[in-house]
């Protein structure tokens, strides 16, 4: 019995679909594609799956992940083509590998993600990325318990400005620590003297990592 790790994209068309709704959509796709997935025990059996950490509503991604267990073996290539035949517009699988059934869940191994932020800050804001990273970066983090201020500088693993409308950054994204790239954009605009409008940002998660060396979930527990 196999476990397969799957890398998929969440495109523009589905960027307003919540994590929970997307999980359901993936489950239904498994059924339409007649994948021999294993079911959980109990009164309400569900496909045995686990997912990478949630992506914020409105963001797109080229690197979302899920694992799924099979009852009978199926080559990853077959899985990819069957699934891509039945997905709704906006979702597509790019890679799949067979992994060890004893491997840890995606949520527990993923600890960082790279984002590309598109934002029209214009030519009058010079690239001040270097200076930005030389100082404390205090942000107000909103949570259910209220607002607290934190210095996120040590949590920005990488940050660079590309041209007049693009930022690339690598941030923690996992079960223990997580930074929303929108905070980083706002902090940078505040620092560089640009106006922040949340709806002006278009954010893409380009990869998720299991360590600071740039290894992805596809490099963990892969079967030989």
């Amino acid at each position, binding site marked *: 019995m196999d476990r397969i790790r799957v890398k998929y994209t969440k495109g523009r*068309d*589905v960027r*307003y*679909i*919540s994590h929970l*709704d*997307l999980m*359901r*959509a993936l*489950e*239904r*796709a*498994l*059924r*339409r594609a*007649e994948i021999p997935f294993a*079911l959980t025990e109990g*009164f*309400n*059996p*569900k*496909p045995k799956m686990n997912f990478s950490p949630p992506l914020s*509503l*409105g963001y797109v991604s080229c690197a979302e992940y899920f694992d799924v267990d099979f009852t009978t073996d199926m080559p990853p290539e077959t899985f990819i083509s069957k699934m891509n035949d*039945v997905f*709704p*517009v*906006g979702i597509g699988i790019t890679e799949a590998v067979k992994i060890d059934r004893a491997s840890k869940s995606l949520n527990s191994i993923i600890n960082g993600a790279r984002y590309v932020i598109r934002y029209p800050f214009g030519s009058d804001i010079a690239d001040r990325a270097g200076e930005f990273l030389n100082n404390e970066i205090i942000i107000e983090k909103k949570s259910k318990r209220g607002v607290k201020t934190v210095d996120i500088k040590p949590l920005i693993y990488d940050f660079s400005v590309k041209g007049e409308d693009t930022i690339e950054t690598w941030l923690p994204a996992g079960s223990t620590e997580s930074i929303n790239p929108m905070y980083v954009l706002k902090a940078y605009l505040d620092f560089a003297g640009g106006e922040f409008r*949340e*709806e002006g940002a*278009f954010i893409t998660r380009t990869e998720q990592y299991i360590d600071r060396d740039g290894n992805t979930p596809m490099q963990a527990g892969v079967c030989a």
Partner: protein
Amino acid sequence: MLKDKLLNEILPKVEKPARYIGNELNSVHKEYESGMVRFVFAFPDTYEIGMSHLGIKILYHLLNKREDVVCERVFAPWVDMEEILRREGLPLFSLESMTPIADFDIIGFTLQYEMSYTNILNMLSLAGIPMDAADRDDSHPYVIAGGPCAYNPEPLAQFIDFFVMGEGEEVIGEIMDVYKECRKKGTSRQDLLRRMADVDGVYVPSLYVMTYNEDGTVRSVKPVSDDLPARIKKRAVKKMDEVYYPDNMIVPYLQTVHDRIMLEIFRGCTRGCRFCQAGMIYRPVRERSVENLMDLAEKLVASTGYDEISLVSLSSCDYTFLDELIESLMDKFKEKGIGISLPSLRIDSNYVDIFNKIEEVRKSGITLAPEAGSQRLRDVINKNVTEQDLVNAVSAAFKFGWRTLKLYFMIGLPTETDEDLEGIAELGETVLREYKKIHGNTRGLKVTLSASSFVPKPHTPFQWEPQDSIEEIMRKQSLARSKIRGQALRFTYHDAKLSFLEAVISRGDRRISMVLKRAWEKGCRFDSWNEYFKFDLWMEAFKETGIDPGFYASRKRPDDEVFPWDHIDVGVNKEFLKRERDRAYKGRTTFDCRKHCIKCGVQDLEEGLKCYGQDQG
């Protein structure tokens, strides 16, 4: 462009943006070409409620099968979205192509519930379409409406160009054909409406005049010319196996109220409960065959990927081949983790076996509807179940391990006394005793006694009945509650004020249009949503329009009164309804007519329209 603005700037700001996107699996996106008819289905409530509605699912796919029609959807925008649309001066838009609603040729509203009517007016306003049908010209779309509440169309007569009576599968195509033909010829709006009136089942209110007596009752509803039908007959399909049913359905991303495959096993109901409008207007009973249903189930599972199939009808346990159907479905789908559910359950212990079988795959609570607390009152309303039936059913359910039970009742039924109301608590106690007999105590048991308020509805044996006043309903609610004791029993009830308005509108005439408009102007919408229901504004609307709501809700009608809906022919005739009403007064029941015809009139509606079991000669 509207679409870009919505996607990039508006949607990030609203709650549940997935309500407005419209690119769900199996949604249909057609390129509009000139010559095509652009139709938009409008559901006057939220996306989650609208997408649970079977009728839209059927007609959406049916219309989109035609190459000359584009059918899209629109739902009532939630208050946050409405606020943004109004502030930004943006029009109400369709989901699929994000086209302004006013650019469509026909807007089809479905009328499921009277308390959604203010949402219709609000949607027209957001679309920038004149609210009154008389104010629309050739540049405006046709606003049409169908669904169960259309059987009394008059409260909406001022706003709707034409109504469609009955089942839509056949008539919707005829309407498209007439529309296309008229448009080709350049027919004026007036003439097109006249042509539509010739389509069976179509009612054009502007071609009918309603006159009133001095006492405010209706004198007559008459067509403006002799060549128009005096009565409009509802449409009903003859053979269910032959009528269109979609083999794929839109799969919403958002969790909707009924988020599963809906497999319609039959239409109509022969039980004859006297308060029930659905039981009268959806006659005759017509069943699909097991083969047909298995075929549809297989296709729908393959095209949707849902993990649950719900067997839908008004009284699913009455399906002739229920055992066979469930066995076949379970054989086919159980291993795949696909569950089967029955939305309504009658009180009968035989069915608990069936239910238990189903529940091996999917476990949920059990719901029974005794409707009244005493046998006397159950006989009055023709709910043909006894206390023993209930005891047998719950006892069987408890033996199988159920611990959650819901019992539905109605408060304010004709002839009801305080003793009947005390019977609600007594039934609750009886249920507890049955549980104790099996488990020794009531630990873990949760019984909800849920009471709605009786609303007399058109085309039912109780259409002549007054509704109890709000105060009386509230008194009865407290009385029923005061008798209910203990941890295991919970009592819930509906807002009496909402039921009062429902009673006014459901038996309203054309003057109610004024009230609806006034209430909407004052800010009423989403009236069936507790947090937005503003009863005081409704009362002001009545006052300002000079309409007495009590005239509609609380008045007992004499036998010979002309009703605002008498010109609508649902098949079941007034003589039958009167006969049933008289039997109700005497506490006499009428048996289920599956075996013997009780001459309700529906088989005379149309040549070849037969009740199930009477169609094989």
